[in-house]
Structures are given as C-alpha cells and as structure tokens.
C-alpha cells in the first residue's frame, strides 16, 4: 500500500454566510473529491488503481494549495501582511505543501499588487524582499509569472492580430524582467506556456510564432510551460481514460517543432515528478506506459533532473529524495530497470550532487526551466 504523508489542508470552520460563496463551495467540493479519491484508492484493488488515485489526489492537493493559499494561511480579504511575513507563515507548513503554497503566494501577491497599483515593478527585487529566504524564490517567481501572463493575455481583444499578440508578449517579457530577481527571470517566462495552454489555448500557436520572432531563446521556456500545463489540464486530471498517462502523446503532438516537443515533454515530466515526489511508483508507472517514447530522447531525464534540483532548492532537504533514489521497481523488468537507472537515477543524482551546486553558485537556476543539456549548462557556467 502506498504511504501518504500528506495531510488534507482544509480545516473545519464555523458555519457563516460565506460558506455559501461559490469559492467556498468550490473548495469544499475539491476536498470532498479528495476524500472520495482517498476512499477509492483504499478500496480499489490492484497496484495500478492505487497509483492512479494517488496521483489524482496529489494533483488535486497541489491545485488546492496554489489556488487557496489565502484560506490556508487564514489571510483576511484586503490583507496587509508584508510578503516576508507571508513567506514565514508558509514555511510553517510541511515541505510539500510549502512548495505549492509559495507558488500560490507569488500569484496572490502579484494579483494584489496589480489590483491596487496597476502594472507591477520590482515586485521581487526591492530592498524589502531581499530578506526572503532563498528557498522561496523559485516558487514565488513561478507564481508571479502566472499572474503576469494571465493579466496580460486577457487584454488581447483580437486573437487573430499578430501585432496585438506580439505587443502583449513583449510587455510580458518586459514585466518579467522588471520584477524578477537576477537568475530567476526564466522561471517567470516559463509560466507563459502554462497560462496560454490552459486558459488561452487558442493562442498557443500564435504565441509560439511570435516568440520565435521576438527571442528564440524563450521558445523552450514557453513549451516547457505548455508541458506543465498539459499535466494539469482538466482532460488529464480525472483518473479515467488513461489519464494522466496519455498526456505524453499530447505533449508530443501539440508542438509543431522539435524544440517544442522536447520541452513540452520535459515540462510534463517535470511537473509529474514534482507533484508526486513522495511516490516514485507514479513515475515508474509513467515509464511502464511510455517506455518506448520516453527512451528516445533525454526529455525524461531532463525533466526529472530539473524537478529534483528545484525541489531541493525550494525545500533545502534531500531526505525525501532518498525515497526516489532507493525505489525498487515492482515487478522487476530488466529493460525498464535500465531505463530507470539511465534516465531517472543517474541523472537525478548527478543533478543533485554535480550540477545543482554549480548552477546555484552561478545564480542560473532559472535556466533549468527548459530542456537542455545540464552538463553543457554547467560547462558554460564555469
């Protein structure tokens, strides 16, 4: 039976009128679904069913932590607590919850700023945020990028207008640069792919085309975000119809070029690894399902390596990674075992022990948010 160290984040409240707010109803529904999934996980026979329901539960929890960070931290509407204090509050949660809640906090903070003052500037790079713990920076930038992307993409009135889309993307890039700390701007860039794919899916190809003209270096980040979006896409959310495993096909199919395909796949693996970091059997199931596709390139190893580095950077602990590194495949399959060793274990260990210290020291962690050769990246860094 799969272990489950993650606790349900909802806490009982007294019944007030706000219990009937759609947002509260939505959260209650999510929690009910979470409990139902847990029940089904326990009742369903077979390892595969357990894996599928567990994966569903994890994804649901990550979504809840992100979207409802204000409820989780008990922040009243119009809250005035400085970001540093909010981050301190998040750090009282367990490591897993803190990662997703911090991303939600980045989003919440950016939205609040935008609502009150308009276009943000220097949001995560002013003197007051210099004291933010290093472990919070990646997730905060990811959350900020999501808010910036959504706020700007929703201003597009004519999706067919290349000019308008281009202007919005340029504005997004500029906003990311003006608000991100050195070494993290790429984290914010990557969010554009996630928001575009899941909220403005009709714009994916247009944005890709414009990005290639504006700055080819950003195309990889965009598609990495698209891959992450595919993992969280509603049609891959529910544990039916071979979800989430069929997302591999989507990641391959939606991109019109090789850079896009590799990044989308790496982004998908990245998200799946991070969301299910405590349950390596979920990653194993993915490999069993898509052994041939995933062995054709280094997208799998890149996604896993990057996710491990980001997890370590965001939590500062590697104890839970032991579970991943010591995981034994059941039932044993020699081909799969070789793939697991070559694409998960070795790259993961290398990432943690060799690449991460150099990349971190060179302040280039944001660059792992796209598919690329990590040895080459650290060779450049040196």
């Amino acid at each position: 039976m799969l272990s489950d160290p993650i606790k349900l984040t909802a806490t009982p409240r007294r019944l007030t009128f706000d219990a009937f707010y759609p947002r509260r109803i939505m959260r209650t529904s999510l929690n009910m679904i979470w409990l139902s999934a847990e029940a089904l996980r326990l009742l369903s026979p077979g390892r595969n069913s357990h894996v599928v329901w567990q994966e569903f539960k994890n994804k649901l929890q990550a979504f809840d932590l992100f979207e409802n960070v204000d409820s989780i931290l008990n922040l009243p509407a119009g809250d005035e607590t400085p970001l540093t204090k909010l981050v301190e509050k998040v750090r009282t949660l367990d490591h897993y919850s803190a990662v997703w809640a911090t991303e939600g906090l980045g989003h919440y903070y950016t939205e609040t700023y935008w609502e009150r003052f308009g276009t943000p500037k220097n949001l995560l790079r002013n003197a007051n945020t210099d004291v933010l713990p290093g472990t919070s920076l990646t997730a905060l930038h990811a959350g900020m990028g999501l808010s910036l992307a959504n706020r700007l993409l929703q201003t597009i009135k004519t999706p067919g207008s290349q000019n308008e889309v281009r202007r919005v993307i340029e504005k997004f890039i500029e906003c990311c640069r003006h608000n991100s700390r050195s070494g993290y701007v790429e984290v914010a860039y990557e969010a554009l792919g996630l928001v575009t794919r899941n909220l403005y899916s009709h714009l994916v190809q247009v944005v890709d085309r414009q990005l290639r003209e504006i700055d080819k270096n950003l195309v990889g980040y965009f598609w990495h975000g698209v891959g992450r979006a595919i993992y969280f896409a509603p049609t891959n959310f529910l544990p039916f119809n071979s979800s989430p495993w069929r997302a591999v096909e989507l990641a391959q199919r939606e991109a019109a070029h090789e850079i896009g395909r590799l990044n989308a796949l790496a982004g998908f693996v990245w998200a799946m690894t991070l969301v299910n970091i405590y349950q390596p059997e979920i990653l194993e199931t993915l490999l069993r399902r898509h052994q041939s596709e995933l062995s054709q390139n280094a997208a799998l190893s890149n996604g896993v390596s990057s996710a491990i580095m980001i997890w370590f950077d965001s939590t500062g602990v590697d104890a839970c990674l032991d579970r991943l590194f010591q995981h034994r495949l059941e039932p044993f399959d020699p081909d799969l075992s070789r793939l697991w060793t070559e694409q998960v274990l070795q790259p993961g260990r290398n990432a943690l022990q060799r690449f991460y210290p150099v990349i971190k020291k060179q302040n280039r962690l944001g660059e792992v948010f796209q598919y690329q050769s990590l040895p080459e990246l650290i060779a450049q860094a040196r």
Partner: protein
Amino acid sequence: MRQLLDEMVVRPVDAFRSVVEMLSQQVESGQRIDAIFSRFAHALSSPSARSSAGQTQLTSAPAKQSSMTNEPGNYSDGLSDEDRLILDRVEGALTDGIALKDWWERTYPDGFASKFELERVFNRPAESFGFFDQVLLPSGMLPVMGNFQQMFYDQTRTPANLNRQSAEWMRDQIREFVLHYFMRISSFRQPEVYVESGRPAVPYYLEPLSWCPQKNILRQGFGFKQYYYKLRESGRIGKFSEAEQSAIVDLREIGPTYEWIVVKVRIFDFSFTFQPFGSNGPALSVPLTEESYLVLSRDFILNRDNPATGSLGRYGFGYAFIRDPAEGLIQYGPGQFRAAIELINFEVSKLGEVCVKMIFVADRPEKIANVSLNPVDWSFRLADTFSFGMTSRLLSPVRDTFERIPANTDGFDPVYGFVSLANTLSANQAAQQLCISREQLDRDFLAQHFTQHYMTIVGSLLTWRQIPNWLDAAALPEWVVTGRSS
C-alpha cells in the same frame, strides 16, 4: 455587503463570461474543454485580490522602491503608469504606420480603389484628392481613407542670371526650416483685441451684459510637444523634461541619436458638427480638444539633396498616430485612429520654387461617437440628479460592484445610428438623394482635414518669411528656438 455582491454576483458572472468567451474561439476541442474547465475553476477558486482603502504595507514597499532596481531595464526611472500606457503602444503604431507609408508609396498616384475630388481652392495653386481603399497590415486588412494635397509655398525673387544660386540658397533655408524648426512654430495665435490690464474685473453675474473687450485667444495650426524618446545606441526609453518639450529636436537626429521620439500634437480650432436635418436645421457642434500622441522615426523623415532631375531637394517629416488609451464620447479622429499617418514633404525645384505635399492615410471610422448603454451608470446619474450626488457617495461600494460585472454591452453611436435609420426608412433614398451616408461623413472628415492642414501651411508661411536667414542660429528669435511660439 460589497464582498457579498462580489462573491455571489461578480465572481459567478465573470466565470460564466470567461467560459462563454472560450466557446467562440477556434481551437481543437480537447484544448477548448481544457480551457473552459481551467477558466471556470480558476475564476471560481482564485483568491479575491480586492483593494482596501489607502496605501498598505503590503504594497507600499514595492511601490516606493523603483530606484532599487538591480538591473537596468530599458525604461528610465520616473515614468508613470500613464507614460507606460502610451509607450506600450509606440512600437505597434510605428509598425502600422510604416506599413501604411509603404502602401502609399506603392499605390500613389493611380492605384487607389476609389479616388475622388476633395476640395477646390480658387485662384491659388493647390490641388488635392481623396481616396478609399484597403491596406493589409500585420494585424489584418484595414479599410482606409485619406487625402493628398499639394500646394505652392514660396519662390525666390531674383534676376534670371542668379536663379541657380538663389534656388540653392532657398534649398538650404528650407532644409533647415523644415527639419529643425517647422514643428516648433506650426501653431499660431490670431490677432486679438487689446484688453486694458488695469480694468477691475466685472462680477460674474454682470459679465453677459458687459461690452468690455475680453481676452479671447484664437489659436490655429498644430502645437507639437515632445514627450518620450528611445535612444538608438542603448535602446533606453526616456522622457523629455518639461523645459525641453516645446523645442522639438532637430529631425535629423532621429536615426543617428534617437530610434524614435513621441510627440503630442494639439490641433486647434477643430470641431465636429453634426447636422442631422441638413445645413439649415439644428446642428450639434462639438469643439474637440483634439490631441494625439504621434511617433516619428527615421522612416518618416525625408532629407534628400538633388533627388531627381529638376529638383534641388526634398525635405519633410511624417508621423504615425498613437491611439489614446482613454476612450471618450468621440470614437474617431486624432487620438482615436486605429492606424494613421501624416506626411508633410517640401520640395525645392531648380527654379527656386517651393511646394508642399501632404499625405494623410487613416482607418475608416467604425463609430463616430459612443454613448454609454450602461444601465448602472444611467441609474446612478439619474439618482444623483435627484439626490444632489448623495446616491453615488452612499452606495459607492454597490456601484463599484455592479461596475465590475462584465456586462459587455457596446455603446450606441447616434451619428451612424441616424444614418442607418434614415436609409432604412427611406429605402436608401437618404443616401442617394440627400447624401446622408457614411461615405459622405468620411468625405466631410477628409475635407476638414484638408482645411486644417491648408491653414497650418498658410499660417507657417508668415513665420517662414519673417526670418531672413534660418541658418543663422544666433540671430533667431527666442520663440523660434524654444518653440514657444504661441
């Protein structure tokens, strides 16, 4: 109360609207479903980032720390959100403007879909025509209209044996005048009645009975002020200081020094008159404070010596119009064009004769005016009328909440509404017999535009003649150098 309305009304309506919006997009069905559910879930679940009154600790820090930037951005410090709203539109306006200019150069003189006479100027050497057509811009096909006008400006008056020398001197003068000073002196004050300064002020209730002369400033032409620039070398974007605003840079610096500059033009004595019942009927005349931001890049600057046989030089400038981020009642005209350019080019012939060619190309109007159809706005205005403004003050949270509901209702255009109604009721006889048509309104706009530019050029002639030598910078009057000409 406000939170209750926000959560129970605004949030669900917003979720519904965002879902419906996705239904109309062209996208593969799986992705559409993803977007619909993601939007729905996000709209219902996302935290409410509502503002509370006043500056808060949360946000005051980011708001005041703009000077703590670690890395230099392309924007210099000191730019407000309003500045950025304009600057965000510069590159788009420039792209469209260059596309319009290229189209003009390909199409002039006889390639227009529809070309027509615009104005006649009796006993003065001037000619013009108007046109309708379509232009393919990066953002799609744009129906355009415009006009071309050419007028005589000046000539040398010298014996025949000095013609060549005199024409070359004229060329040098025109080059300096057009590229360095024209934009500083293109607005004028008409003669004004003298007002005695020592006379005591008349009480306001006696003002209508007073025959005392009043200060009545009548301005004509175009008043330019420069606001923003982008440096060519560094790509840095900045703002001109207030002291620099009137002295428009030497246009020859655009290219070598500046990638572009943004100026604001005030067009004086410009009004829109709507006479639904003909020239003898009642008229609604709206005096427009016509202002528009314009962008000038090297694509619009003309500086050529000896460009063709018979020509000693061509000098001129042009600009693309930037659409104003704020929308008002009037939906068309300077500040509201979706894409538009103006080119003003002077040519000096070998005989020393100077003529001016002016080209204007702009999108054809989709709306002339926009009257709000917002029932919330109407209700509150009516209630305010009877409650002396108390309703808005007492119920401001409720009003704010209602205004957040994305009702998505377009306003009503009374001008085009009247045109459509008149033609519907008369089976198009209104258009055929009485010229009550959109096309006629478009032509009226072009005629107005012609007159405006004609007056500006004629007005500038007096200033041009007033200065004996435009190349003698030290001898130029201060109002020419500073650009504070009126």
